[in-house]
């Protein structure tokens, strides 16, 4: 009737191997909040978010208790504010960020994503105002996350936006320098951004989405690591199979929680995001999985191949476990949020160039990387351009979430706390990209984007 071993396996995954549901994210469309009066628009936004998400946190907590599976975060994503705010006459959107922050605090979610702009081909008036407002918005709010999509496989790369985002990141870091540039931890620059991503800081609710939706992100690097410990010395066929089976089980949890949350909140189920998301806790690291495959440290030659295998096997295992898979779905490789990555950087095994190579084979990109505060904005822009090129050419999502830390240099350490963790400041190539970035314009879409 029941299998004793199965029950113990599940309990062990949760208790000892840090299996959890990383986030239940409710996507909420704000398209019906648009007004030519900024204050009216903001009132509607606050009213809609607090009404739709009123029971989100309580429902998440109840599911957590009943099923005995930790649900770490409850979050909200909204329609990109650049689309919602631009009908009004405001020339600054900081107040929109403030109302999102207030709504997030009222309903008790720890992050709200969607202070966003999609400029992969060009700017509208709303995009211009929103992007200009990002530094101050992230300075004065606590829970608001911002993202900007600057390129896509279909459109190419908007190099004007790439140029501007280097400056915006620098400015955000400067304004939040007293908190080690924390504002930049809440700002993601995307190429090929997805509309149903439940993970922060890059979540927003796409315009192709329904009025509201439940998306779930699972986690479980620790479970994969432990599973691989049982196949030491085995060939990669066995490694891949083991990861697939584990990913299947992890994703089934996500599917169950997503279906249950959707039913109880009476909000349609969107997707389960198959990403393996690490935390700074020991035993919850992607780097340690790669090392378990036989690498002395994450970053050693072979790391990209190991990550490619991991990322692919996670998808293959997860895709059958859920009725709808979406979001970013891959392995995340943030530095500050992964104990093994932090260690690899500290011992000199991992640098930004190797991380860039790794982003070619996984989701999402250069993530949570602290760099010296003296790094010129155009160098940051050039890093964004490189990542965007990887995404655009390989038809995948890439992102840059990089944190210039003013007053700190290579070898210093930055502490963000909580899930954002801590990070050693990493070296950036000192040679200039100034004239390259100053060109502006657009890098055309790649030839293989023309599939029609």
């Amino acid at each position: 009737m029941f299998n004793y071993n199965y029950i113990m396996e599940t309990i062990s995954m949760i208790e000892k191997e840090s299996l959890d549901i990383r986030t239940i994210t409710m996507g909420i469309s704000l398209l019906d909040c648009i007004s030519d009066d900024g204050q009216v628009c903001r009132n509607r936004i606050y009213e809609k978010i607090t009404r739709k998400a009123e029971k989100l946190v309580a429902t998440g907590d109840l599911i957590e208790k009943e099923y005995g599976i930790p649900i770490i975060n409850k979050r909200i994503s909204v329609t990109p504010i650049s689309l919602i705010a631009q009908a009004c006459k405001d020339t600054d959107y900081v107040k929109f960020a403030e109302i999102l922050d207030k709504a997030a605090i009222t309903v008790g979610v720890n992050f709200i994503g969607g202070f966003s702009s999609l400029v992969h081909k060009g700017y509208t008036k709303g995009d211009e105002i929103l992007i200009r407002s990002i530094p101050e918005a992230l300075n004065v709010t606590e829970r608001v996350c911002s993202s900007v999509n600057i390129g896509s496989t279909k459109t190419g790369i908007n190099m004007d936006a790439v140029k501007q985002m280097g400056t915006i990141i620098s400015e955000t870091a400067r304004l939040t320098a007293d908190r080690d540039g924390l504002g930049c931890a809440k700002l993601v620059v995307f190429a090929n951004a997805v509309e149903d991503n439940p993970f922060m800081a890059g979540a927003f609710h796409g315009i192709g989405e329904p009025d509201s939706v439940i998306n779930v992100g699972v986690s479980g690097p620790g479970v994969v690591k432990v599973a691989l410990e049982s196949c030491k010395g085995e060939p990669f066929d066995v490694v891949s199979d083991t990861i697939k089976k584990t990913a299947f089980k992890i994703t089934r949890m996500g599917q169950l929680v997503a279906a249950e949350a959707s039913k109880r909140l009476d909000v349609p189920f969107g997707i389960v995001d198959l990403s393996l998301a690490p935390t700074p806790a020991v035993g919850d690291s992607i780097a340690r999985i790669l090392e378990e495959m036989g690498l002395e440290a994450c970053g050693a030659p072979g790391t990209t191949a190991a990550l490619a295998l991991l990322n692919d096997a996670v998808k293959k295992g997860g895709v059958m476990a859920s009725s709808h898979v979406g979001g970013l779905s891959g392995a995340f490789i943030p530095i500050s949020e992964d104990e093994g990555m932090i260690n690899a950087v500290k011992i000199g095994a991992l640098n930004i160039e190797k991380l860039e190579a790794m982003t070619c084979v996984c989701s999402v990109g250069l993530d949570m990387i602290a760099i010296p505060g003296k790094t010129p904005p155009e160098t940051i822009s050039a890093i964004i351009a490189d990542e965007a090129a990887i995404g655009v050419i390989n038809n995948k999502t890439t992102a840059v979430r990089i944190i210039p830390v003013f007053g700190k240099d290579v070898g210093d350490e930055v502490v963000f706390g909580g899930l954002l963790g801590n990070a050693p400041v990493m070296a950036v190539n000192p040679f200039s990209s100034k004239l390259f970035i100053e060109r502006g314009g657009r890098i055309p879409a790649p030839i293989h984007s023309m599939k029609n």
Partner: protein
Amino acid sequence: MRAVITVIGKDKIGIIAGVTTILADNQINILDISQTILQDFFTMVMIVDTEKCQMKFEDLQNRLRAKGEEIGLSIRIQHEDIFNSMHNI
């Protein structure tokens, strides 16, 4: 609903009595029970039916947890679907 109770910890006298008393007091029927002891390490799994239980699930959970703390074991109760969905297609 059907739930799974798991008790894990060092073996001692009265574990089953302690747990089943709480269940009986709250009209919870035991459908299946299985236990093993490996080197003094006690694990027990029970499938129970909480249909007639008047207590809120959360309160029952707290009550069992408190009992566990009292006798030095970990006792948890979870909806059976978490195990079904993970291991059965």
